[in-house]
């Protein structure tokens, strides 16, 4: 039996356009993320970072262009792709009338995940004891975020899409999150982190791309650990920018696919 060929790119977007009505969410974006790579997507509010993650999760369809997630077309393999992708978004996707543990259990079972991971995930995010039996409606924003993170780590998908992951978390939870991302990267999980504050998450990523106006406008290397199993397979030239305060230096670099 011939071995199954693994995709070199976890995410491949080429000239991707996504619309909300007639408003462009993504305006011809090109991005390649290698399997096992951790990439930081930075940019100002409204730049298209959240839309980029939602497109990668298969929640927003492309109007034109090409998208491949884990080697699959999300529009044709919706269920398969979604089960292999985890999105930590602004919303926590919780039911207020269910307890913390019931929410985690439901989310993991709905995603076809391994229920034996539920307890370790709840323990990781300190969702134990009385808190585990508390209704989600009574939780603070930070606690809801931790429940969403417990769902993500219990599911342990192959591609993590983290939208402003530190938002609402206290210092200890941020540390736990950073540790979880590093742990995931170490075992080959691909992570894309969107943040308008790049500082706190730069150490986690090997590369940062800047999104502005729904396009990738700059790219730079970081010193984080999430380097990926292969180099990004870029089929076209990309603009690399070293961003300094008040000064932007651009260099054109040709990547060989």
């Amino acid at each position: 039996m011939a071995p199954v060929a693994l995709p070199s790119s976890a995410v491949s977007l080429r000239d991707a356009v996504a619309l909300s009505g007639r408003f462009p969410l993504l305006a011809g974006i090109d991005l390649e993320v290698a399997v096992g790579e951790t990439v930081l997507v930075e940019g100002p509010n409204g730049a298209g970072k959240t839309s980029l993650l939602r497109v990668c999760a298969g929640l927003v369809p492309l109007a034109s262009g090409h998208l491949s997630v884990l080697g699959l077309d999300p529009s044709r393999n919706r269920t398969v792709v979604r089960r292999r992708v985890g999105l930590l978004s602004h919303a926590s996707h919780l039911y207020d009338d269910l307890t913390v543990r019931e929410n985690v259990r439901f989310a993991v079972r709905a995603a076809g995940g391994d229920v034996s991971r539920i307890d370790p995930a709840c323990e990781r995010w300190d969702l134990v004891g009385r808190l585990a039996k508390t209704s989600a409606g009574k939780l603070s924003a930070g606690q809801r975020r931790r429940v969403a993170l417990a769902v993500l780590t219990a599911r342990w998908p192959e591609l993590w899409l983290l939208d402003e992951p530190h938002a609402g978390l206290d210092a200890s939870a941020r540390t736990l999150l950073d540790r979880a991302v590093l742990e995931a990267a170490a075992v080959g999980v691909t992570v894309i982190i969107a943040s308008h504050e790049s500082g706190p998450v730069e150490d986690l990523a090997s590369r940062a791309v800047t999104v502005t106006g729904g396009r990738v406008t700059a790219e730079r290397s970081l010193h984080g650990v999430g380097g990926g199993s292969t180099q990004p397979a870029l089929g076209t030239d990309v603009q690399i920018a070293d961003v300094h305060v008040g000064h932007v230096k651009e260099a054109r670099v040709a990547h060989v696919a």
Partner: protein
Amino acid sequence: MWRDAALIAGKDLRIEGRSRVALSQVAPFGIVALVLFAFALGPDRQVMAKGAPGLFWVAVLFCTVLAIQRSVSVESSDGASDGLRLSGIDPAGLYLGKAVAVAAQLIVLEALLAAGVVLLYGARIAVPWMIVVSCVLGTIGLAATGTLYGALSSGLRVRETLLPFLLLPIAVPVLLAGTRIWQAAMAGGTPSSGMAWLRLLLVFDVVYLAAGVVLFGPIQETA
């Protein structure tokens, strides 16, 4: 599909068990509607008993709208519907699960409303099994259509007003058939007089359940 349906139905019924919206808000609303109908018809018990079948099903329709709106709002808060889509859950299972949960709530509501009709309007039921079968088939039809149209209106800001506008006209066959079966059951005539209407309900249920299983996924993605 069946595993997902059981998961969703269990989740929705557990939420209802905690919030008790159907029992504490929808059921009293249905009873109040029956009382108001009684006021509107006047004190003549014969007139009330004659109108009981239609008034029962109108009250059930109003309660269905509220139950469906509740079912939709559960998925609207905190991006829960996105969470379900992201989980990769089978849309057909999701549809069936939500419909089963709505149907279970409606059955309880109908039992309360039926008791209300007997007590308030003095309705006498000669063939009880026809009432039971009509309620079961009517409930399946209402839950099937309501869940489908609830998904259709879920992404819209005007969903509270749009849902009754979409659902009530579509539910007319249930209203008509349910009323005729109740009339036959109350008149004590031969069961065959209500059989044609029972068959109509059955066809309605099959058509809308099939449509829901097929269309719920695409509707959910575009809503």
